[in-house]
């Protein structure tokens, strides 16, 4: 089965260099109103990889998918401007959106990938707001497809994909058969800028709309967030004169 379509699954996150993220007064979460959102940086890398594969003629079509409220269409448009062919916006808003976690998203992506007969699903390795690093893996498990996560290099070799993965010990190279799920890591590529002519072309590309119910996915969360707290403020350090003092201090506060 030669690769036909690749799904790139995007996440909309809080802008990466926004100076101050505040916890809500009731500790139920983080303040998101009025905070600028944009495409998750790892998802940008995923889009770039998919578009590159299409340019090298390994795949025919790149579909950009995202779940969330209307804001999310901007992200899909950016992906279209980077070179994706069409988009799918799965509408999730209000309470459902607040409760939406990796499992619900993975279920949606899995259902879509099956429905549209995708041969590759590429995601960013994690979203920079929650750092979960679960959606890709869960999607693969739900589809029962092989997965190449933390990819820093992707090569298509006939019916198989060679993935070089960044792991704690260094680099691991695996070969998996398609259809498969890949998650993009930082060094996979440098995302291109959407050129103005491509932005204009993106206007004409289609974004289909659907709801999780259309895919038969139940959005009920099995996870309840109990509390969100800011990390404790960093305390000043203590200076010591000699190594013996250091050892004594460490023993005193129970570290050793």
């Amino acid at each position: 089965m030669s690769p036909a379509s690749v799904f790139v699954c995007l996440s909309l996150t809080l802008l990466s260099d926004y100076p101050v993220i505040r916890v809500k007064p009731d500790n139920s979460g983080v303040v998101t109103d009025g905070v600028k959102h944009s495409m998750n940086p790892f998802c940008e890398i995923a889009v770039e990889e998919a578009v590159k594969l299409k340019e090298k003629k390994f795949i025919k079509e790149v579909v950009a998918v995202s779940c969330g409220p209307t804001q999310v269409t901007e992200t899909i448009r950016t992906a279209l401007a980077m070179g994706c062919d069409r988009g799918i916006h799965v509408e999730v808003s209000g309470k459902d959106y607040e409760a939406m976690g990796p499992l619900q998203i993975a279920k949606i992506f899995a259902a879509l990938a099956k429905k549209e007969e995708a041969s590759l699903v590429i995601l960013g390795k994690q979203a920079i707001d929650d750092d979960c690093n679960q959606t890709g893996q869960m999607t693969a498990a739900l589809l029962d497809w092989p997965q190449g996560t933390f990819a820093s290099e992707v090569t298509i070799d006939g019916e198989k994909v060679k993935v070089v993965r960044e792991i704690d010990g260094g680099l691991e190279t695996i070969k998996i058969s398609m259809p498969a799920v890949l998650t993009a890591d930082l060094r996979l590529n440098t995302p291109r800028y959407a050129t103005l002519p491509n932005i204009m072309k993106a206007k004409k590309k289609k974004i289909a709309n659907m709801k999780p119910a259309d895919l038969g996915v139940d959005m009920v969360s099995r996870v309840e967030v109990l509390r969100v707290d800011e990390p404790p403020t960093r305390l000043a350090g203590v200076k010591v004169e000699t190594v013996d003092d250091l050892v004594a201090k460490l023993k005193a506060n129970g570290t050793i």
Partner: protein
Amino acid sequence: MASPLIRCFSKVGRQVSRPWSVCQHGLRNRSTQPDMSAEQAAALGVSYPPLQTYSEEEGMMRDAVNKFAQERLAPFVSKMDENSLMDPEVIKSLFEQGLMGIEIDPEYGGTGSTFFSSILVIEELAKVDASVAVLCDIQNTLINTLFTKLGTAAQKERYLSRLSTDMVGSFCLSEAESGSDAFSLKTRADKHGDYYIINGSKMWISNAEQAGVFLVMANVDPSAGHRGISCFVVDRDTEGLQIGKKENKLGLRASSTCPLNLDNIKVPEKNVLGQIGHGYKYAIGMLNEGRIGIAAQMLGLAQGCFDQAVPYTRQRVQFGKRIFDFQAMQHQIAHVATQIEAARLLTYNAARLKEAGRPFIKEACMAKYFTSEVATLTTSKCIEWMGGVGFTKDYPVEKYYRDCKIGTIYEGTTNIQLSTMAKFIDKEYDH
């Protein structure tokens, strides 16, 4: 995506260490409210949306150029200024991003977008470097517009596709003896059968070092006064065209400004742009639009400078509090912010008026005049707010200060703008 803005604070002995590159952090699009697109405003039933409402396409373009300018262009800026030389890489990337043919039809390789998009692009570029912005502005608002409006099919075919992909253009009107009094130009074009011989010299020609094509305004019949002025398309490699040494300027140093010598240049009849004797009309028409482009450049310059200085005032502590917290500082900063906002509204409104096909010349003059004055005020104040460090070349504000000065001078001096406005005002009270 690793943020390129994380650099180590390497300056020893300075309380607030902000090497050049880190200063770019301040340039992120700092709107206090998320922008609403025109489509969203319409959906809400807001029929007269505020001026800062962009179509989805305009918003995306602005964001794309903002990102591109701050990540790809910013690293080149200080070196280009010091060496008084535009890096060819920069020009290449402008073409690659589609920024040099914003309004050109996709049929000729352009982006096929609107005038307002050009204005937004120029503003975003100017936040980072006014020299790059002016290169883009001249190309889009003067050169491309002239070819699009006046070009024959053959001329469009030959030039528009080059202008949108790899060729820079120059507009040659001013001479040593004719600046504001543009129509007293002395360059002559004498007809000989099916070609013209052009003789004369031009001065203050922007982009001259990089241009592949020059639009030269010359007079075919000096006895007819300005009604002899015509526009000629001159290729760079035309024999007799000499590009002089570029000026060593106070500001906008990366933009090449050269004198031109035209020594018996032979230009075929088919290279006349538009009609003979109508050149003065074309020049006026184009400069009216170019005015809004310059307003956008000065606006971006002011905003970019402001965005560098304010974060400093929030960090710098004296007498136990941030200098931003002193009332005198707050008042000055708020005053400047108001001026910039007013300048922005004038500029955007002039652009929208032009797009709507409504009269816009008085408003365009107002926009150019006001924004250039605001840029002067803003940059001067920003240096003061940053104190000693503002005065050094290690920090970007002094460059904005030097760059802004040309705003009140080129493409119609402030005095010319004011006189033009007065003429319109006079007419308004005619009945």
